[in-house]
Structure formats: structure tokens, C-alpha cells
């Protein structure tokens, strides 16, 4: 598939009184046309900072892109001037933010907020932009769009507001959509609606999506490929099946193990012990070593490179080195992988019911 975006060795640092926080420490990935790449990781793992860098939204100071390239459309976005970047932002690359309560302007009518980008980027006239805004609201499933564009954000519910945010992001037919935890603030039923909407719109517009979340259930639902981030680096990347059915990195095992499935008979969740490292003084060697139950001597001395598992699947852990002892994922994680087959049956039940109604 055609690559639409390439990120090479991206490093982002924030200068604070306590020292320089190395929030992103050398991230490499590419995004292909029409795919959804999910980035998962704990808070502080650098997933939001990575996407902010893509949008040119790292506040400087205190933040700066220390090195690396972001290649889009033959241009390196890290080298662009503010003015050039603002032409791309909102037109070619746009963003859906986490909290629909705060990402809309409360003093502006919803319609005007959607029209803003259209008038600026596509040089549309007001009347035409308004027409398009009504179309967009209809597209994202808001009833009575003609009346709704004259309303203010507080007159919308949380789920409806997130639909408005999506409409704004889609206004200029972007090639890349960055979604930073777009459903975290929403209820499960509303979340399901928004995810369905996003998948539907992606099919219609063929946009590529980078989807940031910490909810592995959501990842399994939306992603084609998954990148797992830890302490400012991607530690494992692969297709959604690679990551869920054949995970290789102990951190990925930990993440999968700490989520309950709906099967009965689980006695304990596998918690990852400890807390993420301090990125002012990142540890020498593998940053995950202090929390890794399979830690080896080399983990504390040298950083593991990306080992190739298959053409689509890479992981950065010394466990994949040919000299490393062969370790199996924890029994509970393995049982979970098999247990997933059981939830498959549950799925059939829902399909039947779905057909009935």
C-alpha cells in the first residue's frame, strides 16, 4: 500500500525546571493510505506528543523537536515555517480531540465553527460554506442540521458534540485524521456509535487515521495496525492480529493481561508492577527493564533494537535475540488468547440477536 506519511527517528524534548523531559525518544513508523494505525500506551508514553508533533502543535518553548523527519507529500513537516504549516493543518491533516466539552468554542455557533476551515482553506463563500456545513452535520448523523448549525455547543450532548468535532475535522477532506482519544470521555453506547461513524466515514473518504487510545477493546475494533508505545518509544508494531494473537513484547503481554475479558473464572488480573520511568533521566538500556519480569542482564546495559518477527511485525525486546532464553507469555495471557475463542461464541450470540432486531 502507498505510504502517505513517514516518521523517522522523531525526538521531542520539553525543557522544564527539573531538566529536559525526553517525551519522544526516536519514533519510526509510516502510515499508509486508507489505513487506521492505533497508537496505544499509558499516559506519559509519548503518544499524544507524537501526534502533536505531526500537527506542528508542540509549544515552543518549552517543547522542541530535537531531531527526526516527518515526511508528508514530499515535504519534511518539521522544517516548515508556521505559515506553511498552517496551510496543511486543518486541510491535509486534521485532528479530533479527546474532550468534546472543551475543544469547541462555547461562544461561537456550531455552524460558524465548521465554516471557519472551509472559508480559510478552500476559499469558499459564506453561503456555500454554510451549505457544506449542513451537509457535514448530516454526514456525521446529527438530525435537523439546518436548525442545529444555528445553535451553540452547550445545546448539544457529549456524543453530539463529538460528532460536531468530527464534522469540523472532516470539513476540508483531510488525507490524514489524527484522533487523540476521541471516545474516552464518552459512554460505551455513544462510543460505539462514534467508532462506527468514523469507520463509515473512512470508507467514504479513504482518509488515513492515526487513532490514539489506551483502551485495547477500542483498538481491536478500529485498527488495521497497532503501535505500542512505552517511555517515548515504539516497543512493538504490527497488524492488529499480530499484536493481539502473537504479542512478543513483555509490555504488550502486560497490557493484554491487565484487561479483563468477559469470560468467567478469571482469578487475578496480571498487573504490570511499578510505574513508568522518569523521562528526565531515562534509564540506561531497556526502559521497561525495571518492570519486566523477564529481565535479563543485557536489558540494563543496552537498548534493544527492533527485531523482525514477520514482514509486518516488529518488537524491541532482547527476548527475540537468538541467544536469549525462549520464554513463553505468562500462562494467564496465553489462556486469554485461547479464551478469546470463547468470546467468539459470545459474538455469535450477539449477531443472532442483532439480526432479530
Amino acid at each position: 500500500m502507498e505510504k502517505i506519511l513517514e516518521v523517522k527517528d522523531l525526538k521531542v524534548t520539553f525543557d522544564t525546571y527539573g531538566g529536559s523531559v525526553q517525551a519522544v525518544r526516536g519514533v519510526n513508523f509510516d502510515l499508509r493510505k486508507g489505513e487506521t494505525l492505533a497508537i496505544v500506551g499509558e499516559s506519559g508514553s509519548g503518544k499524544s506528543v507524537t501526534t502533536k508533533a505531526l500537527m506542528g502543535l508542540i509549544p515552543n518553548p518549552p517543547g522542541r523537536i530535537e531531531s527526526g523527519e516527518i515526511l508528508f507529500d514530499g515535504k519534511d513537516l518539521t522544517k516548515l515555517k508556521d505559515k506553511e504549516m498552517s496551510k496543511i493543518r486543518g486541510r491535509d491533516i486534521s485532528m479530533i480531540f479527546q474532550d468534546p466539552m472543551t475543544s469547541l468554542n462555547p461562544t461561537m455557533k456550531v455552524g460558524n465553527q465548521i465554516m471557519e476551515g472551509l472559508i480559510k482553506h478552500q476559499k469558499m463563500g459564506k453561503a456555500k460554506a454554510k451549505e457544506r456545513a449542513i451537509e457535514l452535520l448530516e454526514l456525521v448523523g446529527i438530525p435537523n442540521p439546518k436548525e442545529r448549525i444555528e445553535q451553540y455547543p452547550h445545546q448539544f450532548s457529549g456524543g453530539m458534540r463529538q460528532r460536531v468535532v468530527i464534522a469540523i475535522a472532516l470539513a476540508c477532506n483531510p488525507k490524514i485524521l489524527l484522533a487523540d482519544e476521541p471516545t474516552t470521555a464518552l459512554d460505551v453506547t455513544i462510543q460505539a456509535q462514534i467508532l462506527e461513524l468514523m469507520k463509515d466515514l473512512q470508507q467514504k473518504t479513504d482518509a488515513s487515521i492515526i487513532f490514539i487510545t489506551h483502551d485495547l477493546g477500542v483498538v481491536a475494533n478500529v485498527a488495521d495496525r497497532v503501535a505500542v508505545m512505552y517511555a517515548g518509544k515504539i516497543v512493538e508494531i504490527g497488524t492488529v492480529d499480530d499484536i493481539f494473537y502473537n504479542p512478543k513484547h513483555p509490555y504488550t503481554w502486560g497490557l493484554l493481561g491487565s484487561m479483563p475479558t468477559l469470560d468467567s473464572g478469571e482469578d487475578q488480573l496480571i498487573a504490570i508492577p511499578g510505574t513508568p520511568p522518569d523521562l528526565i533521566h531515562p534509564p540506561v538500556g531497556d526502559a521497561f527493564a525495571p518492570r519486566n519480569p523477564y529481565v535479563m542482564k543485557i536489558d540494563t546495559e543496552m537498548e534493544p533494537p527492533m527485531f523482525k518477527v514477520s514482514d509486518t511485525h516488529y518488537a524491541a525486546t532482547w527476548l527475540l535475540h537468538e541467544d536469549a532464553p525462549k520464554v513463553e507469555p505468562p500462562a494467564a495471557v496465553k489462556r486469554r488468547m485461547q479464551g478469546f475463542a470463547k468470546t467468539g461464541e459470545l459474538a455469535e450470540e450477539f449477531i443472532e440477536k442483532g439480526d432479530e432486531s
Partner: protein
Amino acid sequence: MSQEKLLEVKNLKQYFKTGRHSIVKAVDGITFDIKKGETFGLVGESGCGKSTTGRTIIRLYDATDGEVLFNGEDVHNKKSKTDLKKFNRKMQMIFQDPYASLNPRMTVKEIISEGLDIHGLVKDDKERTARVRELLETVGLNKEHANRYPHEFSGGQRQRIGIARALAVEPEFIIADEPISALDVSIQAQVVNLMKELQKEHGLTYLFIAHDLSMVKYISDRIGVMYFGKMVELAGSDELYKNPIHPYTKSLLSAIPLPDPDYERSRKRIAYDPATHDTSEEPEFREIRPDHWVLCTTKEFEQYKADLENK
């Protein structure tokens, strides 16, 4: 888990005035009981009244109507200070936001020992320090943490401090209002495991309020599903997930994304349409199977029952 009831909630109502003529019926006549040593999960979407239920039980709000019996005694009719104090010791709460629920001007020791002092559980500072250290260790923190301030801790650690504070007065019953929803996935598991261990060691009873249905399923013995201030279904957690009866429960369960791509590819969401209900009479909470309750009318009751048998 014994069959003895620790908490009985009878027809509890909590209305809020939102204007001169409008009221919000946040909790509108719910009835359930919690047995000694069990974890009772309360789920529902935001605004369904699950948090209000928890807060009314512990008397953060005065109930509009209904009764809450704790160990057979009516909680909301207690008037005298000593009675109240006795009750407050037995029921404690863990809050959702570990950033907002700890006083930033107090050290961890002051936070944890406040309850000890109020209830006169320690004689002097030496005893107080010892007890605080013991509590910190119980929840997996170090005794060195006692003199630090909340801002020096991560979210997961703060939630542990909140748990230590709740445990300090040796309660029998803990209301946990979304205790893990503000935490990272890996930390959520740590806190849930800790709560389970503490339950075993201290014989605690929990009311666990959450919107994350997979976590609720994991931790709870029985689960109540709330919708717009009413409880629509109540059953053992396995039974509820295996045989959901109320259309709202079905819709809620079908909306949970699971960490399994194959399942996700085939999952179909069931939308809930309240208009499909039979409106010929006021729905009532009925027992459709032993220990499985559903809010329904007589007609619906027969239909649900038939559906269950044909399964």
C-alpha cells in the same frame, strides 16, 4: 459470601430541584440489597443515577424518599451525633478522581489519620504514626511516603492513599465510585487486585460503581444495571452477561469493545429503543429466575420468560 444482608435499599428516591418548577429524578425508586462480603456492581451510562445512589446511601445527600438499612438500622433517620459517628465509621467511600479527592495542603499522614483522630482510635502520635505506616504498607506504599504531599504521587499511588484513608477506620462497607476510571490500564489492574485482596483479608463488602462493564464483571458478584434513575436489571454477574433480559442491558453489553480483533470484526451492536416497551401498565421489578430481577410489565414478563426458556 453469606446470605446475610448488610445493606438494604428500599424504594430510594433522590430528586434534585433544577429550577422553580423542574426537578430531576436522579434516582427514582430503586430497591436492592447487598449481602455481607460480596461486591455489588452498579453500572449504567453517565447521568443514570449510579453515583447519586452511592452518595445518597452514605448520606452525602439526604434522600427524597425511601429507606436505607445498614445492619438493619435506618441510616437516614439517625439524628444524634454519636449515632452518626458510629455509622460513619462503618461505611467509607473511595472517590473517582484521585487528584481532586485528596487535600493538597495535607501530608499523607494527616490525610490518613484524620479519621483515626475523629473516631478516637489512636491514643498518641506514636500510635498514630505506627497505624499510618501499617496502612501504607497494606496498600502497597512505603512508610517513607507518610510525610509527603499528594502532588508528589502518581494517579495510581494517590488512589492507594484514598484506599488507605477509607480503611483507616476499619469499615465494614466501602462505596467505590468509579475508583479506577481515571487510571491507566496497567495501574487499573493493580488497584483492582489490591481491592480484591483487601476484601479477602478484611472481609469487606463493596458497592462498586463504574461504567467499564468488563471491569465490573470481573470484580462483582452481583450487578445492577441502571437506566434513567431506575434499576432495570439485577442478577449474578455471570448470569447477567450470559442471559441479559432487559433490552437496555443487551444493548449495553453489545456495545463493549473487547480486546479481541476477531470478536470485534463480528460484533453487532444492538440499539436500545425505549419506545418498544409495553406501556399498558407501570413496569415493576420482578424476579424472572431465582436472583435474577428485571423491570417489566406483566406482558413483558411473560415474553421474557418465554425467551429465556427457548434459549
